[in-house]
């Protein structure tokens, strides 16, 4: 495009637009809302380039978080994250008083260092056995059955690292910064919009919602 009587060339027009358009969108409040770089959180599936991003603030000792992970997040990981359509990021936020939830978060942080498959297996096992370890306090049994004995020994070694506790604390601080009041809380970002949801969302609902943005 070239305007008659104007010195603006096509190249300079697009160069200007590259700066002006995002600035205009930012002013109008419709610019894509991206989480801060370097925020804690484990990407369970998808990538930063996925069209939909779901940040989950969760507590292993919370029943609704269990339902959310097993019934909603797992199918999303399988159906959408595997195709890089949805990025799922988990943040630990054990509610005050949920001491076992905090301990479970430490196991999961250690499992994270063994790789994504181990991390997912440990999360699933901890959630599946929630009622049992909440009663007995024996998290070791739930974590051990999610991996071979050699890996479990490694995980127990990793758990001695003081950085594990520090990382869990970083998750908690981040959740407080985000003013998370309860678990589960989801922050869903798609097409420059953001919606915060407190509570359990069934998979059929998420499927319809994601379908708006993903084919």
């Amino acid at each position, binding site marked *: 495009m070239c305007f008659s009587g104007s010195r603006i060339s096509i190249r300079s027009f697009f160069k200007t637009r590259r700066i002006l358009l995002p600035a205009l969108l930012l002013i109008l409040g419709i610019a894509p809302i991206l989480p801060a770089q370097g925020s804690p959180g484990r990407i369970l599936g998808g990538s930063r380039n996925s069209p939909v991003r779901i940040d989950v603030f969760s507590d292993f000792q919370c029943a609704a978080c269990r339902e959310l992970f097993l019934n909603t997040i797992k199918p999303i990981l399988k159906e959408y994250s595997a195709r890089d359509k949805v990025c799922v990021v988990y943040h630990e936020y054990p509610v005050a008083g949920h001491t076992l939830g905090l301990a479970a978060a430490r196991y999961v942080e250690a499992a994270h260092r063994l790789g994504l498959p181990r991390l997912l297996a440990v999360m699933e096992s901890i959630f599946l056995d929630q009622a049992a370890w909440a009663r007995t306090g024996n998290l070791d049994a739930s974590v051990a059955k999610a991996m071979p004995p050699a890996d479990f020994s490694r995980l127990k070694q990793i758990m001695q690292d003081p950085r594990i506790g520090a990382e869990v604390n970083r998750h908690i601080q981040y959740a407080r910064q985000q003013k998370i009041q309860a678990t589960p809380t989801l922050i869903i970002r798609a097409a420059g919009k953001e*919606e915060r949801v407190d*509570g359990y969302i069934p998979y*059929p609902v998420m499927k319809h919602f994601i379908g708006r943005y993903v084919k």
Partner: protein
Amino acid sequence: MAWRFLHWACRILLGALFLYSGYIKIAQPLQFSAAVAGYQAVPETWIWPIAQYFPWLEVALGIGLLAGWKLRHVAGAAALLLLFFSVLLTVTWLRGIQANCGCLSFDDPISPATIARDSLLLIPALYLLLEGWLKNSLAGSPSPPPSAA
């Protein structure tokens, strides 16, 4: 004059509440879906259609009440909806489910206070529905019971 004031007060109160209630649900469809799921009253596959279409019914009722078009029909529909809400809230509370009311905000757990509030809103809706009959009764003139037409 007092009747006129009461009539408009009921219409504006209910109309504004329905409009506001519909608006917040349209603006936050996922949060409203989570609230509907919290009631544990419908299958999971129904939740998204409810979250998509139900708020528009509230908006339509709000506009109808404020515009005054077919007012008795609209007031009747509003009364039925409020009655349905009151029963649903009461049953959910009696079942011991800790759900979010999702009525006028999403930070509003179901409690006797929310049940009382929704039940009290029935009064202006019923007033608008039965207004003609009520006026005639109080004036002392015999009047046939109100019909929907």
